[in-house]
């Protein structure tokens, strides 16, 4: 009688290790926190339960893990902002759970599919927000930014609406991965104002793209890039970047402390500088042993 299992080394697509940290704070001025965030793993796995195959013929356990980071900065009246950011994220999760076939590894073709799906989901999340606002007049006009970064193996996909941000810190350099969807930035993009004027422009918080609000402007930027060993990905709401200079963010990341620690340090800097808005920061540090 044979009923042996076939144990052998775990076979995963790419051995990526990720150190994650996240923190959100209402700041020193705002009465409530209208930022929401989520850091989650998506895993698929296969395990041999029973077999008569000889040992070592097939992997006993196989697993693939993807990492998702989302920030959402809500706006719109007393209850609207908090409701908007929270609803958008939970609608997105619901849509992901209903998707029959998660894509768990990427090539160029599949990356396009993933970005297309993210784009569709953002639109569907907006529909949920608009419907909620329609049913409850206190929520009328509520909206939210959303910045999503999702890593599958050594590739990162980004979907982005609004003025929250995603950064990449690689080999001592900080790179901004997203473009702010604000009026001030739009003016700079067409050359009406200089890039250095954006940070102090009166319309630097006026959103050109948002999920919800009047509807129809949830136009997401989509991006895909390869990750390397040592890369750090940072997502944040403008409550951080309005208070802390990019140079200081880069310096904190350069020290190489664990993600949770750096999140705390950055939050403290923002609060010390005034904490004028809700702030949220997420950090993912990637190790890819060769």
């Amino acid at each position: 009688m044979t009923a042996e299992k076939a144990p052998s080394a775990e076979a995963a697509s790419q051995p990526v290790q990720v150190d994650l940290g996240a923190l959100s704070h209402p700041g020193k001025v705002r009465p409530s926190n209208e930022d929401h965030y989520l850091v989650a793993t998506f895993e698929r796995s296969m395990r041999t339960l029973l077999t008569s195959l000889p040992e070592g013929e097939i992997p006993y356990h196989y697993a693939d893990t993807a990492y998702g980071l989302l920030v959402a900065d809500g706006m719109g009246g007393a209850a609207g902002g908090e409701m908007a950011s929270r609803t958008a994220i939970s609608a997105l999760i619901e849509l992901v759970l209903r998707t029959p076939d998660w894509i768990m590894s990427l090539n160029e073709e599949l990356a396009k599919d993933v970005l297309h799906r993210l784009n569709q989901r953002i639109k569907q999340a907006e529909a949920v927000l608009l419907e909620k606002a329609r049913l409850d007049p206190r929520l009328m006009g509520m909206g939210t930014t959303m910045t999503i970064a999702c890593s599958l193996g050594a590739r990162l996909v980004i979907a982005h609406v609004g003025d929250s941000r995603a950064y990449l810190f690689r080999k001592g350099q900080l790179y901004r991965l997203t473009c702010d969807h604000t009026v001030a930035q739009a003016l700079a993009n067409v050359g009406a104002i200089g890039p250095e004027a954006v940070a102090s422009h009166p319309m630097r918080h006026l959103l050109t793209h948002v999920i919800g609000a009047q509807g129809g402007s949830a136009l997401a930027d989509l991006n895909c890039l390869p990750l390397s060993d040592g890369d750090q990905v940072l997502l944040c709401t403008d409550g951080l970047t309005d208070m802390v200079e990019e140079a200081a963010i880069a310096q904190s990341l350069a020290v190489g402390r664990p993600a949770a620690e750096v999140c705390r340090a950055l939050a403290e800097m923002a609060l010390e500088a005034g904490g004028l808005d809700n702030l949220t920061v997420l950090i993912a540090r990637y190790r890819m042993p060769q």
Partner: protein
Amino acid sequence: MKSDVDPNEEGLLSDAPEPALEVPPPPPHTLSSMFRVELAARSHPGREGAHNEDHYLVLRAERALEPLLTNLPEAALPCRFDETVYGMLVADGLGGMPAGETASALALCKIVEMVVETPDWVMRMSRLKAAVVKRRMAERFRRIDETLRERADKDARLLGMSTTLTVACSLGPDLFLGHIGDSRAYLLRGDELQQLTRDHTLGQALIDSGIGEAENTIVRGMRHVLTAALGIAELQAGAQIRHLQLSQGDQLLLCTDGLTENVDAATTAAILSGAHSADEACRELIKAALSVSGDDNVTVVLARYSLPQAA
């Protein structure tokens, strides 16, 4: 000001405009992970010292979303995040030693390899995805056939190696079957034992074309002659692919002909009904087969399904 509208309320999401969701909004408790499946499997070479050219494999695939860090309130996240799929496979190798043993093992290994290579496992059902699953299964059978012939070309000892293959894959109540050869899949529902696969044998072809009944001597003589298997170029390797719905209490049995040659349907049904556990049923089936004859390898894989109660 608190709003107690639940963001996960079905009505809101199902009213979302185009692009349409493929999956209609399900009731909250139909996640495939909530189906209890009891599994057992046994294989016996038959005679003392005989080689076992049968192989079996039982797999469980899972997907899960795990929130690690968040400031979302608990109510904003759904309560279950995982889906589960079970795979059961039997293969009966042909072609003498070492070919038969190699063929059946290779078929199973190749399937695992192809599944791992597939980036987007279907782990939740919809009509569109059911078609994808069936198409993939047919494609995988074709590629195993190709692999077996390529391997045999390189190694004279493996000349003519081939194998039957019967695959069952269950995702919640959805059952997919892929089959070629004369191994079998049965479903015990209530008292009734239904054969889910059709043998690819000359005997079965004679019965199907109305030329003879099953008890007919000539038909019986032809029941071992395969008309299709994986690995033999001249046979038309057309796999049977089926999609069925499981019910509460269903028992799914996969077996090689070492069982069905020696144990009739009534006895099989009785053993499946009477056994207290899937493992006991497998032991009893093997015992019943060996008590008649040890001429062939005998393999059984059994899954007993318990569906969650509707709310």
